[in-house]
């Protein structure tokens, strides 16, 4: 019973999923996909697909699953199904080290928008006061952009970018005062010399709109969803996901709660 499933990833979202010089896919999700497939006892093929066409192509049955750092959102749930989460979405602000926002309150701390709702909201209010009149960049149509829209609607000039590198470039050029993005992706980018002048400022948020990252599946593919759910549950329980997370992100993003 060697069933084969095809999993799509973006291949350009280091360190979650990215491409090596010779074209081989690498990253947290690639390793995880191999683990999950092994547990599901299926043969897996991982393919790269441009982000813009990733959901339509799933529904057109070009492949069977998506593992591309995709957060579970209500809008996406309208068109596709999600498995149980395999990672939590941690987000943070990055700013210029010598700018006025360099030391926002809560730097170094982590707040869950679900379990620590009151503290988190207090921090958000403090930060909102600081961000008034500032320009903030986010990647368009991500949980970061919905977080900004729901919590910093007025007073902040919000700019949407196609990719995280682009808003990072505008942060270093001074067109932006801050960016909000996935903490693991930011951490990776801040390690490069181009972004030596920038740093994380303010707390890391989790839960709430940031929610979780899960495998995207076709709605009618309930059998496959059950298989993924089971495999992910097991991998979370025995710490496999945590190990992979530490390997790729140096922090633990495994889903809690």
């Amino acid at each position, binding site marked *: 019973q060697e069933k084969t499933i095809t999993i799509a990833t973006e291949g350009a979202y280091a360190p979650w999923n990215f491409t090596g*010089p010779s074209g081989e896919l690498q990253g947290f999700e690639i390793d995880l996909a191999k683990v999950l497939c092994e547990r599901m006892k299926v043969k897996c093929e991982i393919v790269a697909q441009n982000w813009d066409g990733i959901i339509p192509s799933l529904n057109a049955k070009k492949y069977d699953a998506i593992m591309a750092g995709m957060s579970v959102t209500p809008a996406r749930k309208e068109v596709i199904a999600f498995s149980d989460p395999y990672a939590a979405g941690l987000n943070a602000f990055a700013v210029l080290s010598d700018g006025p926002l360099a030391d926002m309150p809560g730097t170094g701390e982590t707040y869950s928008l679900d379990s620590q709702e009151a503290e988190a909201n207090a921090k958000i209010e403090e930060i909102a006061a600081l961000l008034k009149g500032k320009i903030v960049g986010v990647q368009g149509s991500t949980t970061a952009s919905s977080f900004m829209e729901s919590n910093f609607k007025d007073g902040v000039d919000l700019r949407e970018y196609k990719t995280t590198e682009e808003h990072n470039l505008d942060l270093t050029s001074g067109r932006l005062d801050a960016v909000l993005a996935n903490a693991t992706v930011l951490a990776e980018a801040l390690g490069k010399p181009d972004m030596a002048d920038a740093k994380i400022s303010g707390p890391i948020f989790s839960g709430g709109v940031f929610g979780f990252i899960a495998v995207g599946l076709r709605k009618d593919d309930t059998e496959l969803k059950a298989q993924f759910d089971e495999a992910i549950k097991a991998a979370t329980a025995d710490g496999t996901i945590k190990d992979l997370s530490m390997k790729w992100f140096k922090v633990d993003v495994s889903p809690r709660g």
Partner: protein
Amino acid sequence: MDYLQLMGFGPNGWGYGMLAATGMTVAVALCGYLIGSVLGSLGAAAAFSRFMPLRAIAGFYTTVLRGIPDLLVIYLFYFGSSSVISAVGALFGAEGFVGAPAFLTGAMAIGVVSGAYQMQVFRGAVLALPKGEIEAARAYGMPSFLLFRRIILPQAARFAIPGMGNVWQLVLKESALISVIGLVEIMRQSQIGAGSTRQPFSFYLTAGALYLLITFVSGRGFRLAERRAMRGVRRAA
């Protein structure tokens, strides 16, 4: 990592990947352009036809396909063709994704769009032809297609070649859009590289250089064609 190493052909170099992507760009663009030439010349012929319905179809084709975003055409071709083919496949019990090959779809989509532009170029060129020479051909009994092939086409080439060069450039750039249907061409490869290494400039500058290289080579071709087409034309000093 310095630039040369990044774009080189060593173990950590992206050279082979970029080269392969360049090949894909050229292949898709070339196929699309040729399909477009056929459609464009048929369209131009229809635009000058004696039959009203043909003229109307040609007008509709060029207006709509130039008017809508190219990405929409590609989406419609790709997902449209795959849902049709899947539906047909389902009738025969096939399951899962049955789609036209991505390359074919991409080339067709680009061909259909570029045909609409090429039709305009041809039309303009035909309008510039000396009327008397066409009359002479008619007077010698040339039927429409022969007239088109032997007299109009070679002469129109003179006026069309600069415009055709423009459309070729357009097609080259347009081929970047086919990445949404899963083909890895120069721009998609650069985007992958930029996202994977976080060095966007190295990749986008290289992409620009690769396109320039293609342009340079094809530019020679167009220059030669222009010189050939201009045989017999007297230029005022």
